[in-house]
């Protein structure tokens, strides 16, 4: 089994290095094909490992080599395939295989084709390290690796100012959070003396609650950055500047769920500190509705999907915070399928309309893009949580968890969010695919994406449909080998049915409302004059609650001013002046003593004699001072020195 572990881990690395060989050359189709095949082999290896784990086999745990060993510190390159990491491995390899194949079509006309595959595979490799590592240090390497690849890929079109800006924003915000994560890891090592998961979590049972709370909080700060939770959420929407396959893979299915993975992986820690758990759940619920409201009005299809991702991450944290770790992980998996599908569909639409993102300029695309329409609609149905698609089983479960645990505020918020989710998802579906044709007038000639791109997307479609009812029970049985096996059942049968059907009706009503509102022929490209667009609520939402504005005005600008002051006053006047002074002094010395080197033997001999005399006098002075040291000390002490 170790063999398959190594294949799953290193095939993406090989793929990345292979593609890297061709980065300076023009587009080569086979680079994309070889990369896809290598990632696919990682997927196959993961599948074999999954069957091994499902078959009740031993947990595969290997130590590739020792990384650090000094004193008490021992960190190996250790990898583990257990029920949690195999879930993540399956999600990562499956979605990345599909995204790789899709990208062959999507990046078809891009000059950076080879480079793109190199970055994308490097991301998969980092992500595999992140999920497979058996210690916090390895996790952190992967954590930083995915951060780096995310930066590279968001800023892939680096000639665009907005793309580089978004890449830097994402990178810097993640660094802020990573500091918290690093402190958390230090605290773990400080208090338990090890970074291995099993050792550290076993030792945590003996620590006092206060220490554990700090560890939990700091680790969660790291998770907040990676999973874009409030208040570090602004980077995710801006990250949509990257190519769409990147958004599908990194900013929907895998990297942003790393935070959830961290919390689930640390479940033994969070089980000991339920207060922090409750905080996580509350924050999750808040982010869920917060992001959903911003998605209601946004006029950029990718950003709407990004906010929807944010909102769903909120759901996952709500479940994880309430102790329903397996539910969180299950929703993570289901969400990866339908959200990646939604993004890839969005990519098709963008391609058809030469990168147009405003859904108000589309309309009626269903006629030309039937395949994409079906896929995106079904993905949205799954996202909205309609029976029997994937979202129903995973998302309704989170609602049930909140209800059964008597967290009725969280429950209400999440229920409302479910309605909003349905509304904004079908708002863009209706605007893109139905209603009046608004794009022809703007000079667009849409065409459906390549056949193989649609075929590549189809496994996601199938999974988005069936993942719920086929996987739920087997998954529960598998993953609860490791995670707390809490089943959530509303005790009264009647209450259960009322809840489920009530939620379903609410969601369906939202969908119909969205269709009704946005399919009407009176929809026009908004020009900022309508009454709604001038209302306070609309302005608040379209400006993302003025949070980016707030950051810009109250964090970025003061920081810039402070930096300018430091630059002009401290750096130039003190640091530079000191360095320049030293350089100037040395230069002047050289300039003035240059004449000594006149080349004239006579002059040089004079200098030699002068030097000899100086040395001789020094020798005499020191000789005398040693000879009379006793007397000198007496005299000096007599003078009171």
């Amino acid at each position, binding site marked *: 089994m170790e063999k398959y572990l190594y294949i799953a881990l290193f095939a993406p690395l090989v793929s990345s290095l292979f593609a890297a060989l061709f980065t300076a050359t023009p587009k080569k189709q086979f680079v994309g094909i070889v990369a896809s095949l290598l990632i696919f082999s990682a997927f196959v290896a993961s599948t074999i490992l999954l069957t091994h784990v499902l078959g009740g086999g031993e947990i595969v745990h290997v130590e590739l080599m020792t990384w650090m060993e000094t004193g008490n510190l021992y960190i190996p390159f250790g990898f583990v395939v257990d029920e949690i990491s195999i879930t993540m491995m399956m999600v990562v390899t499956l979605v990345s295989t599909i995204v790789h194949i899709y990208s062959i079509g999507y990046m078809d006309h891009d000059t950076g084709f080879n480079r793109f595959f190199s970055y994308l595979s490097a991301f998969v490799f980092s992500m595999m390290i992140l999920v497979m590592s058996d210690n916090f240090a390895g996790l952190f390497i992967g954590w930083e690796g995915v951060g780096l690849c995310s930066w590279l890929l968001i800023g892939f079109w680096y000639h665009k100012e907005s793309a580089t800006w978004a890449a830097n924003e994402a990178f810097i915000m993640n660094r802020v959070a990573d500091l918290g994560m690093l402190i958390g890891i230090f605290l773990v090592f400080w208090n338990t003396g090890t970074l291995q998961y099993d050792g550290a979590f076993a030792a945590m049972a003996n620590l006092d609650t206060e220490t554990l709370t700090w560890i939990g909080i700091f680790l969660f700060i790291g998770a907040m950055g990676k999973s874009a939770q409030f208040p570090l959420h602004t980077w995710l929407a801006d990250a949509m500047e990257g190519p769409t396959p990147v958004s599908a893979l990194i900013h929907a299915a895998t990297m942003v769920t790393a935070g959830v993975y961290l919390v689930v992986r640390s479940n033994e820690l969070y089980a000991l500190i339920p207060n922090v758990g409750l905080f996580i759940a509350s924050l999750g619920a808040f982010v869920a509705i917060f992001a959903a409201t911003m998605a209601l009005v946004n006029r950029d299809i990718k950003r709407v999907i990004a906010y929807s991702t944010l909102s769903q991450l909120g759901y996952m944290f709500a479940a994880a915070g309430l102790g329903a770790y397996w539910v969180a992980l299950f929703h993570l998996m289901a969400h990866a399928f339908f959200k990646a599908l939604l993004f890839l569909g969005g990519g098709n639409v963008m391609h058809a309309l030469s990168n147009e993102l405003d859904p108000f300029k589309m309309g009626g695309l269903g006629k030309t893009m039937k395949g994409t329409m079906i896929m995106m609609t079904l993905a949205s149905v799954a996202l909205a949580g309609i029976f029997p698609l994937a979202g129903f089983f995973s998302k309704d479960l989170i609602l049930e968890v909140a209800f059964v645990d008597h967290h009725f505020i969280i429950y209400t918020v999440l229920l409302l969010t479910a309605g909003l989710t349905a509304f904004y998802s079908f708002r863009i579906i209706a605007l893109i695919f139905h209603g009046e044709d608004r794009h022809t007038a703007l000079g667009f000639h849409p065409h459906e994406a390549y056949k193989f791109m649609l075929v590549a997307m189809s496994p996601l479609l199938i999974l988005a449909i069936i993942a719920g009812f086929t996987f739920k029970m087997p998954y529960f049985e598998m993953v609860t080998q490791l995670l707390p096996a809490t089943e959530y059942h509303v005790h009264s049968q009647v209450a259960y049915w009322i809840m489920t059907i009530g939620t379903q009706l609410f969601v369906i009503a939202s969908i119909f409302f969205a269709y009704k509102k946005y399919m009407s022929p009176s929809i026009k490209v908004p020009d900022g004059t309508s009454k709604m667009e001038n209302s306070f609520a609309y302005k608040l939402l379209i400006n993302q609650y003025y949070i980016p504005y707030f950051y810009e005005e109250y964090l970025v600008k003061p920081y810039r001013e402070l930096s300018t002051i430091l630059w002009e006053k401290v750096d130039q006047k003190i640091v530079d002046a000191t360095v320049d002074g030293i350089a100037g002094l040395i230069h002047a010395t050289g300039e003035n003593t240059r004449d000594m*080197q*006149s*080349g*004239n*033997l*006579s002059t040089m001999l*004079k200098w030699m004699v002068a030097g000899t005399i100086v040395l001789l006098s020094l020798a005499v002075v020191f000789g005398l001072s040693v000879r009379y040291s006793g007397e000198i000390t007496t005299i000096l002490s007599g003078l009171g020195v």
Partner: protein
Amino acid sequence: MMEIGLNHYLVLSTILFTIGLVGVMRRKNLLLLFFATEILLNAVNVAFAAISHYYGDLTGQMFAFFVIAIAASELAVGLGLLILWHKRHGSIDLDTMTSMRG
């Protein structure tokens, strides 16, 4: 009649050394520079011999012989170079030898 002792030799040696040093600094003629160098070396030899005699230890005199031998060979090489230089440039004035100017 004053007994001639060690101090007299050392004073002589110092005077000779100073003369040599001034010669080394002031002379512009390469040949005379060699003379001055010889005076320097022999000043030291006088001191060596005197001190050696004073302590009854032959090491100093032995050292003086070495100095003489080395001075002779140094001079041989130096004069050879001097003649060569004179053939090429027609002058042995130190102020004309400034090719090492920095």
